[in-house]
Each structure stands twice: as structure tokens, then as C-alpha cells.
């Protein structure tokens, strides 16, 4: 599932844009992974003052959310390349969990500073040159390696639209942006097995219904050999670590680029992966 998705993402984000989202109309800042949709939403959020709680917010009734949840779930199952549908599913089903996560963040000093400062992980906010110059084994360097090897970019995450609270929308957005960093921390690539392993970790760590659904349905698409690996070694490791580690949203990753990845793992309570997944 993921290598074609990665190719798709590569094709849709050919240019890295140095401008922050608000100033740039190019497709590199498209709010979802389809270039067909990009122009409408990005230009409309620029030229029209938004009447929602945050730019890109689309207020929805309970009925609409229910329909969206069912529809997006069906669409995502039908066509796993519809990342926008997975995103919508997460937004419409995650309300209670987002509240829990937000409260968790408020009670943690680092999480609280994240809620106050609202950092965003985008190519425009990352200093790639500085990260490339960091020593081997540092978190920043490893993250950069992950981005290059798997040919992904942090700018391909869809914007949150259907969460009706501005702070919860940020929590959701933070979860999405932290996903790639989790890949780095767990040492998992972006192929199907790696993604499912990360989903199991996230389901255990955050409890978001979308992660749980992904964790349950993802393995159905795995080849038998990989499924066995997942069920015997990778899966239990992911779940155990997800449960015992700190909530991944509580970490101010942007301050920790220089930290050695092993130290960071130890601090969070994440064991290194039991085997390397290719």
C-alpha cells in the first residue's frame, strides 16, 4: 500500500516551497493529497475570511459527521490511497479521544508548552541544512534520513477540517504531523508492515478510534509472511511500548533535534525495534 502511496505523494509534491502556508498559493501547500482539490481549498482560505473557528474549518452537524464517518470509512476501505478519507475518518470519530489527549497534554509540562506555542512541523519551519549537519545518531539526522529514504515530506498531511474546537483541531493536526517522527523513533519504514506497526503503537498510545480501526483492518492487507512477523514479534513490541511510553503528543520534538535518538528512546520508554523491517 505505501510504496505506491509514496510515489503518489512524490508526484504531487514536486516542489518544496519556502513560503509559509498563508503566503503561498502553490500546490505544495495543498490541504489534501490530491492536486485536483488543492486549488479550491487553498485559494479559498486565502481570499475568503473563514467563518469557522480556524482556517479550513467546515462546521458540520451531527448527522453530517455521522454520514462522513461512515462514508469516509467505506471510501478508505475501498481505496486505501484515499488518505484524505482516512484523515476525515479520524476527525469525525475522534472527538472524545481528542479531549482526553488534550487534557493529558495540559497536565504535562512539555505538552502544555506545545499547546501554548502551537508548533507546526512543515518544511517551511524546519531548518533542513542544520539538521543535515547534525551528528550521526541524532534525532534530527535520523529524521532527515527517514524522509529521504522513504521519499516523503511533512507537507503532505491534510489539514484538519471537521473538528469543531480550535484547540482539539490543533491536537489532531499535531498527531498527524508527529506520525512521521514516530516512524523515525520506532525505526519503521513506510511500507505496509511498517505502517501497521506504527498504527498499533499509536492505537495503544493515543487510543484514537481511527488508529484502532487502522490497526485492526491494516493487517488484512498484509502478505502471510509479514502478517506472521507482525503477530509474533513486531505487533506485541509495538503495543507494549505504546502502552508504557509517554504520550507521543507530549514531546516537543522541535527542541530535541540534537538529542541522540537512543537517549530519546530511553527517555520515552521505547525499546529499539526487535528486528529491522525493510
Amino acid at each position, binding site marked *: 500500500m505505501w510504496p505506491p502511496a509514496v510515489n503518489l505523494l512524490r508526484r504531487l509534491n514536486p516542489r518544496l516551497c519556502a513560503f509559509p502556508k498563508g503566503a503561498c498559493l502553490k500546490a505544495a501547500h495543498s490541504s489534501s493529497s490530491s492536486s*485536483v482539490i488543492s*486549488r*479550491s481549498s487553498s485559494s*479559498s482560505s486565502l481570499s475568503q475570511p473563514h467563518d469557522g473557528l480556524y482556517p479550513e474549518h*467546515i462546521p458540520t452537524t451531527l448527522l*453530517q459527521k455521522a454520514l*462522513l464517518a461512515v462514508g469516509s470509512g467505506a*471510501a478508505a476501505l475501498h481505496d486505501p490511497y*484515499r488518505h484524505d*478519507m482516512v484523515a476525515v475518518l479520524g476527525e469525525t470519530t475522534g472527538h472524545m479521544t481528542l479531549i482526553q489527549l488534550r487534557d493529558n497534554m495540559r497536565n504535562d509540562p512539555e505538552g502544555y508548552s506545545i499547546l501554548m506555542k502551537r508548533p507546526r512541523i512543515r518544511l517551511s519551519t524546519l531548518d533542513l541544512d542544520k539538521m543535515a549537519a547534525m551528528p550521526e545518531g541524532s534525532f534530527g539526522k535520523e529524521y532527515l534520513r527517514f524522509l529521504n529514504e522513504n521519499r516523503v515530506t511533512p507537507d503532505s498531511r491534510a489539514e484538519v477540517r471537521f473538528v469543531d474546537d480550535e484547540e482539539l483541531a490543533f491536537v489532531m493536526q499535531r498527531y498527524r504531523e508527529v506520525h512521521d517522527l514516530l516512524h523515525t523513533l520506532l525505526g519503521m519504514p513506510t511500507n505496509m508492515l511498517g505502517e501497521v506497526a506504527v498504527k498499533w503503537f499509536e492505537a495503544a498510545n493515543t487510543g484514537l478510534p481511527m488508529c484502532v480501526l487502522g490497526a485492526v483492518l491494516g493487517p488484512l492487507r498484509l502478505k502471510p509472511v509479514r502478517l506472521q512477523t507482525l503477530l509474533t514479534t513486531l505487533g506485541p513490541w509495538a503495543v507494549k511500548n505504546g502502552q508504557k511510553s509517554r504520550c507521543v503528543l507530549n514531546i516537543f520534538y522541535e527542541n530535541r533535534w540534537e538529542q541522540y535518538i537512543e537517549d530519546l528512546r530511553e527517555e520515552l520508554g521505547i525499546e529499539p525495534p526487535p528486528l529491522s523491517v525493510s
Partner: protein
Amino acid sequence: MAASVGLCTRRIFRVFYTNVYLSASAVWPGSVHGRAPHTTRSLSQEAGDRSTHFGFETVQEEEKAKRVYQVFENVAQKYDVMNDAMSLGVHRLWKDILLHAMNPQPGARLLDVAGGTGDIAFRFLEYIKSQEDKMRKREARSMQTPSWQDISTNYLNEQGEEPKESTAVVCDINKEMLKVGKQKADSMGIVSGLSWVAGDAEELPFGDDEFDIYTIAFGIRNVTHIEQALQEAHRVLKPGGRFMCLEFSKVSNPLLSTIYDTYSFQVIPVLGEVIAGDWKSYQYLVESIRKFPDQEDFKGMIEDAGFYCVSFHNLTGGIVALHSGFKL
């Protein structure tokens, strides 16, 4: 002195000119025809700050065309799928009804404006073909026992005869929609009798008195100046030509209206998001339906453009109305 006279005449000209179009840019539905209250407004709006509606939003007129273009550019690929999903396939019946009301004969020239993906044009060509088949069968049946004289006249006729070819021209302002339509035509194997033209309904790239039938199906509510489009329709039609318009309209039955509104605003944007990945375009679509004048008002607008024998038929309880008028 000459400069100020020129300025004066230009101002006067603009007052007359803007008056005609102000009622099309009225923000409230069921646009009024009263011109007097707008006269004072028109002088202050010479600078070009006229606003109109884009769904429930108010935008500048220049911007509306651009926004509409973007909407259809985004939805073009999934346009037909979405139509089937939103109307549960009923839009096909509406278009079939349009064709049956039109009842085109072989040799007719059709202009389908805002014809995008070509639904009306394809149906037109099929209808003409089946009419021609019917005619041929009728002729064959009536000539079962021809005399030698008949046979020889037939041979002479056949040599000199050129069957009147019906042509359909699909005109749309949006190139993406035309592209999708052309692909459909190719996959259906239609090689002749069909042409695709990019053009603006308010300023058609055709000469006067060219077409027998002008249709615009579910397109006229997206036009910024509806009256201009109606005048253009009048211009390009031949005398005796027919104007036909399918468009979403007002539902009078209150129960059906509630169900329709709930469905429109709750379900359709969700369908747009799930199927086409575009909530906002479909939100615009359902809002633009509410902003369009109702059946009687639109009939009045068509009459104002110079059409005669204007009538309308409600389809599906008034969800869609078929308006028709003739140029005499």
C-alpha cells in the same frame, strides 16, 4: 470641454447599460424587475464594485466567474459519478424528458451551452439517429410494392440526395469539463456531428441566427449575468428556433421542500467530500440552487429577452423545471 462631454455621454451610457444587468446581480432570490430603486445605486457603482452571490456568499462579479470556473475545474473528473450519486440516477430521466420535449428532427442544429461533459449532446445525436431509423423503416414499409416508375425515381433521388446532417455543438467556458466530454465521446465512438467549443454563455463565439435549438442544462444558474446569457441565446437562434433550459427550481410542496433541503445541505456536501474529495464545491452547488429565481420569475426573464410562448414544466415536484421559449 470635449473631454467632459465625452465623460458625460459615457456616464449616461453606463447608467442605461448597468440598469439592464443589475437585476441579475441582486443578492436575494427571486430577482425583482423594478428598475427605479437601482438607478441611484448604478451611478455609484461605475467603478466596477458590483457584487453578486456565489452560493450564500457575496462576492464581486468579476470574482464569481473565476470561482465558478475553479469549482467545475475541480469537479470535472468526478462530475458524472457525482450526478448519479446525488440524484440517485434521476438526472438521466430529467435529461431524457428534455430530449423528448425537444423532439428534434433530422437536420436540426443544436447548441448545448454549459454542456460540459456532453450529456445533452449525446442524447440529441442518439435521438436523431433513432428518428432517422424510424423514418427509413416507415419509408421502406410504405414502399413494399413499388412500381418500375417508383424504383427508377428512387435511384435518381438517391444519387442526388444528401441526408441533412444534424450537428450538435457543445459550448462550455470550462476546458476541463470539455476535456472530460471529449474523452466520453471518444470512448463512445462518436466521430461526426459533434463539436466542442470553449466559450462564455454571456458572449457566445457564434454568429447570429445559427442554431435551431439552444439548450442549457443545469448551467444557467452559474452564469454571472443571466439576462446576458438569455440575450445571447436569442441572438444565435434562428427565427423559429427554440430555447430550452433545465434548471433546479423552487419546490412548492412544504413536506417535499423540507426533505429536499435536508438532503441538499446534509447529504450532498458529504457525498462531495467522500466521492470527489471536495466539500466546498458541492456546498456551493446546493447554495446556488437556492439563489436562482423561481419558475415564474425565470419565465419572466426569458420573456424579457425576447422569447415567445414561454412555458415551464415542473419535474420531480419542482426540484427541476424545464423552461421553453421560441424566437419568432
